[in-house]
């Protein structure tokens, strides 16, 4: 599978990222390398497609319905580029 420039532009649109022509070129090459690596991984022979890890759980772990978290407003907002009144603050996304 190869990544052409149109695919890169489409992904950029979906991600709402504006790319210069040079960036389309360079990201295209990077993505191509990632795909190549995945293809290389797929060449590895794994019996039945399952890793032979006996410790692997096969059932989804469930928790009970209890409030055990929250009240972390400061931590939650720590990485926000901008905040106001304890909200995340982003450029307006609708007209």
């Amino acid at each position, binding site marked *: 599978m190869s990544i052409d420039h149109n695919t890169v532009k*489409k992904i950029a649109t979906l991600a709402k990222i504006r790319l210069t022509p040079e960036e389309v070129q360079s990201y295209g090459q990077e993505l191509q390398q990632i795909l190549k690596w995945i293809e290389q991984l797929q060449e590895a022979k794994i019996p039945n497609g399952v890793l032979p890890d006996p410790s692997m759980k096969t059932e989804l*772990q469930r*928790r*009970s319905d*209890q409030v055990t978290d*929250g009240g972390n407003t400061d931590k939650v907002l720590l990485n926000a580029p901008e905040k106001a009144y*304890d909200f995340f603050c982003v450029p307006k*996304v609708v007209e």
Partner: protein
Amino acid sequence: MAETNNNLIQGKNGLWEIVMGLEVHAQISSQSKLFSGAAADFGAEPNTQVSLVDAAMPGMLPVINAFCIEQAIKTGLGLNATINLKSVFDRKNYFYPDLPAGYQISQYLYPIVGSGYLTIDLANGQSKKIRITRLHLEQDAGKSIHDQHPHKTYVDLNRAGIALMEIVSEPDLRSAEEVAAYLKKLRMIMRYLKTCDGNMEEGSMRCDINVSVRHPGGNLGTRCEIKNVNSIRFAQQAIDYEARRQIDILENGGTIEQETRLFDANKGTTRTMRSKEHAPDYRYFPDPDLLPLLLKKEEVQRLKDTLIELPDAKKQRLIDQYALSAYDATVLVSEPEIATYYEKLLSKKRDPKVAANWLIVELFGYLNKIGKTIVESPISPEQLGELVDLIGAGVLSGKMAKDVFVEMAETGQAAGQIVSKRGLQQVTNSKEIERIIQQVLQSNPDKVAEYKSGKDKLFGFFVGQVMKASDGKANPALLNELLKKALS
């Protein structure tokens, strides 16, 4: 096979039929979120109910809420649906500021609940089966607030990660009325099961409507999806507008473009949100953080065994057991709390029809007037039951009972107390009533003469006079009978 549809729309060149399917998002009534331990209740201060899982901090792992799984199964059972013993969580990828992870955990190819149906009741007394395609579990997104700043959007992640059930119907709906009936029935079922409170104002139940039009019997037309419909009334407005818009385009030789449209509640219109070319490519794939959800048959059976009687079954039972009219039964099952109130009223042997009337006409009328719900009723089922008993025993006439009812509602006193305090005992003693009748006739000799010469209408005048003289306490049936005798 052509189905009959009484909701066709007359166009310029022939009749049109609206075809609709619904996607309803119903918030599960749980304490905590689907994959995190943050609280899930409505109305908290911004970003106070957010775990680092919901904020998508690197390395945080989702752990599923067992209660939410059960609620999805119960709802599925309430919709007569198959429960899939194996389902899978997928990542649905898209970019939006209120989705910090850049993906929503949802279910795509393997939902927890498969096909089912619900039955809607229509105004003409008929009912119709609407097929359900699936129900799956997914996370809600955060809330974007666009109107607080001229250039900024504020984001609150309290809602991010709350458990939703997405319930998808087949395109079986043919009119705004059917859509309204579907939403009401779905909400009713979930309220009975206590899986979702169905509060559309608070956003705990939201719906997207897929609308297309066609000539009856023709192929399905291209559909448009209407988003942001947050009340039943808006759903009806949106459908009326959208169907008319599509018909106008087609009748003027145009074609419908498949697109997502937004309902504008202020204008009552729909407008383009995004076209098909800009439709997102969600790139679904199984979430590597979550193993498949496996259910045991016994687990599903255990939930099935605890299911309470649902509205359709309850309605039928009320009709069969108490000989109620379909109308009365429909009103009584419309909310689980009303049905409970009614059944408490009948926990002692009472006339079911009289009890239903007092509940539906008097109590609802009063609650409406004071703007309260049945749960906040100032009159308990036991108190209303006592009043019904006093009518049944002939102590109170219907009219006297209405006065007592108002006093009960306003003072919280028991009916018996009010009756003895106000000396309201109905007069059922014939001798006493005859005595009053004689008094009235003697003091109105001219009216008696007129009546006897054929002016029948005066009968009502005598009834009124006797009633007045008895302070409204004369038993009306007895009074009528004795008065007729006295005047003959």
